[in-house]
C-alpha cells in the first residue's frame, strides 16, 4: 500500500465538503507536499482544486470528476486494480500516474478536457497484466484552448494469456492554436498467448499545432537479458529486473516514493 495520509471527505482540514453537490473543494492557495488518500468511495464524487493550489492525491474511488482551476496543480496517482472512471476539467496542470499489477481484470475510462490556455496534461500509465487477466484502458483528451499541452505515455507487460487493450483518442479543436500533443505506447509480451491491441487516434482541426503518436510492441529484448546474465544474474531474475525497470521507467520523479512502497 503506497504512502499517503488517509482522509475523510468530511471534517477535512484541507477543504470543504458539499453533500448537495457531492463535491470536495480544496482551499485555495494550498501547497501540499504530502500524498493524501481519500477513503475509497463507490458513489460518484467531484473534487475541485482551486486557483493556485497544489495537491498530491492517491486515488481509490470508482468514479471521480476533477475540476482544476487556473493555476492549480494536481499530482494524481492511481494504484487500484478495479474498474473506475475518471474525468478532468483541466484549466491547470495535471500530472497523472497509474501503476498497476493486475490481480483481476479491469476496465478504466478517463476523460481530460483542457479548457484554458496553458493547461497541460502529463499522463503516465504502467500496467503488468498477469495470466488470464484483461486490462482495458480508454483515454480521451480534448484540447479546447490555445497553447495546451499533452504528453501521454502508456507501457504494459503482458504475460501469457493476458490481454491489454488501449484506446487513446487525442483531439485538437479549431481554436486550440499552438497546442502540442505527444502520445507513446510501449508493450512487451512475455508469453506466446499474450495479446495487445492499441487504438491510438489523433483528430486535428487546427494547423498551428505539433502532434505525434506511436505504439510499439516487442518481445523481451535478448540483448538486455544477455547483458544482465553476463553479470552473473540468473535468467529469471534478469527478466524480473528488466520488467520492473521497464514498468517504472514511465514515471516522473514525483511518483518515485510511491513506487518504492507499492
Amino acid at each position, binding site marked *: 500500500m503506497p504512502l499517503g495520509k488517509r482522509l475523510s471527505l468530511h471534517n477535512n482540514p484541507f477543504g470543504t465538503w458539499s453533500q448537495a453537490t457531492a463535491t470536495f473543494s480544496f482551499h485555495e492557495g494550498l501547497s501540499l507536499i504530502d500524498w493524501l488518500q481519500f477513503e475509497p468511495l463507490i458513489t460518484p464524487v467531484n473534487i475541485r482544486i482551486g486557483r493556485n493550489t497544489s495537491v498530491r492525491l492517491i486515488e481509490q474511488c470508482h468514479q471521480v470528476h476533477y475540476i482544476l482551476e487556473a493555476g492549480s496543480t494536481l499530482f494524481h496517482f492511481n494504484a487500484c486494480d478495479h474498474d473506475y472512471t475518471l474525468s478532468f476539467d483541466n484549466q491547470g496542470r495535471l500530472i497523472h500516474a497509474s501503476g498497476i499489477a493486475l490481480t483481476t481484470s479491469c476496465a478504466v475510462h478517463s476523460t481530460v478536457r483542457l479548457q484554458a490556455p496553458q493547461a497541460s496534461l502529463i499522463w503516465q500509465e504502467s500496467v503488468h497484466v498477469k495470466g488470464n487477466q484483461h486490462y482495458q484502458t480508454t483515454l480521451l483528451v480534448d484540447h479546447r484552448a490555445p497553447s495546451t499541452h499533452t504528453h501521454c505515455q502508456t507501457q504494459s507487460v503482458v504475460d*501469457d494469456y493476458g490481454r491489454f487493450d488501449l484506446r487513446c483518442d487525442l483531439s485538437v479543436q*479549431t481554436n486550440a492554436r499552438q497546442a502540442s500533443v505527444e502520445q507513446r505506447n510501449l*508493450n512487451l*509480451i*512475455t*508469453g*506466446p*498467448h*499474450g*495479446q*495487445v*491491441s*492499441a*487504438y*491510438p*487516434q*489523433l*483528430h*486535428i*482541426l487546427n*494547423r*498551428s*499545432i*505539433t*502532434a*505525434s*503518436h*506511436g*505504439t*510499439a*510492441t*516487442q*518481445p*523481451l529484448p535478448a540483448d538486455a537479458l544477455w547483458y544482465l546474465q553476463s553479470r552473473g544474474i540468473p535468467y529469471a531474475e534478469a527478466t524480473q529486473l528488466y520488467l520492473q525497470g521497464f514498468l517504472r521507467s514511465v514515471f516522473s520523479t514525483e511518483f518515485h516514493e510511491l513506487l518504492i512502497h507499492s
Partner: protein
Amino acid sequence: MASATDSTAFNAGFGLNQNTIRYISSVKNESPSLLAFRLQALETFLKLRLPAWIPNALPPIDFQKLRYYVANTQRAKKSWDEVPTAIKTTFERLGVPEKEQKFLAGVEAQFDSEFAYAKMRQQLQEQGVIFTDSNEGLSTYRELFEPFFAKIVPPHDNTFAALNSAVFSGGSFIYVPKGLKVQQPLQAYFRINAERSGQFERTLIIVDEGAELTYMEGCTAPIYDTQNLHAAVVELVVKKDAKLQYITVQNWSSNVLNLVTKRGWAEENADVRWIDCNIGSKITMKYPGIYLKGRHAHGEVFSIALAHSGQWQDTGARVLHLADETTSNVVSKSISLGSGWAGYRGKIHIQPNCSHCKNSTECHSLLLGDESRTGTLPYVAISGDSQSVCHEASISSLDEEQLFYLQQRGLNRAAAVSLSVNGFVNDLVQHFPLEYSVELKRLIDMEVENAIG
C-alpha cells in the same frame, strides 16, 4: 461537358433492382450461374448496413438515381483507329496512346462501363501473359479466373463490395505465367464520362510462381454537379516467390465518390506492393489490403493523399499477418490544403499462432490551410511474444523558417510551398515510374498553387 444520353448503345437506365442486373447480364451474354451470383450479391447489398465508423463526410447516396451500365461498345478494339472518335480523342488528350508507344507493355482503356481499347505487346502474348477484361476472363479463362473470383473480396465483405459484385463490368484480368518477369508495366485507364453514373470495374491479377509484374491504373472524369460513384473491387493473387507492384494515380473529378475495396493475397515468399496516390474525388475511402498467407511473405503499402477544400481523403492500409516470419511496411503521407481532410485509417493484425512477424507503419500529415484538418486512426492487434510491431505518426504545418529561406532565394511563396510539399512526398514518389513521378509532381504543384494563390 455533354453527358451520355439515349444515344449510347447500351444503357441500363436509372435505378438498381433485379431488372438492372438482368439487363447487364444479358448485354454481356453471361451464364445463368453468373447471373445468379449477381442477384445474390444484390440481395446481400440490400441487407448490409454501412459500418459505424464511416465519416459524416460521406453524403447520402441515392442508389436509385444512378445508372449502373452505360456503354458504346461491347468489346474492346485492338487498334486506336477502330475506337469511336469521341472516346479516342478523350484518351489522346490524356496521353494514353503516347505512353503505350513509349514504354508500356500493354494498355486497356475503359470508358464508362466497358473497355474501348485493349492491346498487349505480341511478345508477351506469345509468352502466355493474359491481359483482358474480367468478363472475358470469366468466359474464356474460367479455369484460371474462377478459383479466385470473389474469394479475396467476397460480396459480403462490405456494402460496396456487394454492390460491385451485383453490377460489375469492365476491369482487368491479368495472368502472368510461372517464372516470367514482365519488364514493362501493364496499364489500365478508367474514365467515367456519363453523368449520374457509376463505374464498377472488377480487376483480378494472378501472378504465378516466380513471376513479376508492375500494373498501373489511372482514372479521371469530367466535372458534373451531380454525383458519380466509383465502387471498384481489385483482387490480387501473388503466388510463391512472385512479385506484384500495383500503382494507382487517382485524379477523379470533385463530384466522384470513390469507394474502393482492394486486397491481395501473398503466398510463401511473395512480395505485394500497393503504391496509391489519391488527388481527386469528392470523398475517397480506400484501404489497400494485404493478407500475408505464406511464410516469409512481404507486403508494402505506400500512400500519398492530397485533399483540397471540399475533399475528404480517407486512405490507409490493412495488413493481416497469417503466417510465420511475415513482414510488412506501411508509409502514408497526407497533405491537407484549404479546408480539406486527408488522413490515415489502418489496421495491422497479427494472428495468434504466428511467430516472428514484423511490421513498421509511418504516417505523416501536413496541414497547409488555416482550416485544414487531419486524423490518424490506426488499429494494431498483436498476439504472441516474438512479434515486433511499431507505428508512428506526426502532424504539423510547414516550417516558416524553411519557407523564408526559399523565398529569400527568389522563389515566391506558392513555389516555396510547392517545393516543400514535393520534398515531403519525394521518398514515396520515387517508387513511381519516372514518367508518372514527373506527372505526379506537376499535379501536386498545380493543386498547391491553386490553394496558396
